[in-house]
């Protein structure tokens, strides 16, 4: 997987700052797992945060600082590595993307670990969805091949990571590994490619604004 559509620079900065709303950060994570280019830029965005940290001007509060310092020295004398749960995680058995049935690890808590294990619910003709538990604005969508989705724009931000299949819209072709990073100014009408269904995971920061009757019906039905 070699993505052609990447996270917007402002999204990377927001992620690095810990300011991206949770559902969006989960989809961003799903993209970052498969995109070394965005991981590289993320490191640069984190370096900006570190430099801002360097530049803070701490107020002098020497008495308190001295107390904390003493407390730290005490801890150094007593703590050993065993007091901290190990940071080591089991290494991945396979490279990300190696098994086509595997979902990105960021999505596992919400959708399980495999595509084949997903339990789709009918949403509209040609469209199935799964809403993440306890994360209502995070959804998985499966759109039938050759399907034209209703024209819609976005109330705030939407991040969509393509997992299988592909679609076309005014911004180009979106294939597995690509992320669509959209905001309120984009009104688009995705058309899925023929052949296989398009499966994508999508997070919203605010309600979608649909502009057609079918769309409004879908909206009422799924309360997007």
């Amino acid at each position, binding site marked *: 997987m070699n993505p052609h559509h990447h996270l917007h620079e402002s999204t990377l900065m927001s992620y690095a700052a810990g300011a991206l709303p949770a559902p969006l950060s989960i989809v961003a994570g799903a993209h970052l797992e498969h995109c070394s280019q965005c991981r590289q830029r993320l490191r640069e965005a984190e370096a*900006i*945060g570190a*430099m*801002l*940290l360097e530049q803070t001007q701490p107020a002098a509060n020497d008495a308190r600082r001295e107390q904390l310092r003493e407390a730290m020295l005490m801890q150094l004398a007593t703590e050993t590595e065993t007091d901290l749960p190990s940071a080591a995680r089991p290494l991945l058995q396979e490279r990300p993307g190696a098994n086509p049935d595997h979902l990105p690890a960021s999505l596992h808590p919400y959708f399980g670990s495999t595509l084949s294990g997903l339990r789709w619910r009918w949403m509209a003709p040609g469209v199935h969805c799964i809403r993440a538990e306890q994360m209502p604005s995070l959804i998985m969508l499966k759109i039938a091949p050759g399907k034209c989705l209703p024209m819609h724009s976005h109330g705030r931000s939407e991040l969509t990571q393509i997992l299988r299949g592909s679609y076309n819209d005014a911004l180009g072709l979106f294939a597995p590994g690509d992320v669509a990073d959209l905001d309120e100014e984009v009104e688009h009408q995705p058309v899925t490619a023929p052949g296989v269904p398009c499966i994508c995971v999508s997070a919203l*920061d605010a309600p979608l604004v649909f502009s057609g009757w079918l769309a409004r019906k879908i909206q009422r039905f799924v309360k997007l």
Partner: protein
Amino acid sequence: MYPDAASTLLTFDTARIVSSSQQPSSEPTNWAGDMDRVARLRDCDCFMRIYDHFMPRLCVYLRGLGASDAVAEELAQECLLRLWLRAADYDAAQGALSTWLYRIARNLHIDRVRRERSWLQVQAAVEDAATVDMIERSSAEQFADQARLRQRINELPAVQARLVRMSYFEAKSHSEIAEALGMPLGTVKSHLRRAFLQLQSKVGGAL
């Protein structure tokens, strides 16, 4: 590799004597040598130099994110204790020490204060994937990157600087920034994008 008990005590005593006063300059320091001694020799003096530099800064950062004084102090202490315990995990070729600490502080805050369960899981997934990334930058190169970055932060246009600070120091989302400043969301995003491109440390010359 641990020093014996007697020399540990001696090290702690020396560390107490070392003044905790701030360095007058805000120039970034190259901590690679100190970290190496912390990791290999469990050198307490080196650790306390790092501690004295970062502890007050971490407190300012965490308070900015909305933590109370007490919580900010507790989290900052925990950050630095992690640095001590996991010093061997730090790889200077992967990035500056300040970036490593920044990440620890940010993650602790999101996990403990905002209690977003999803964040650490996503972090772990992205970090696992990042083990295949090859980044080798000498500490001198990184030091030069940092100096350039510092210069460019100071040169950001006022609006961009404000949005960058609202993102990093107040953890405000794009839509929160848009609402607070009465600015269209797309404008917030394009200002931040321009700021990012201007700050990118690897790009030589002005953009």
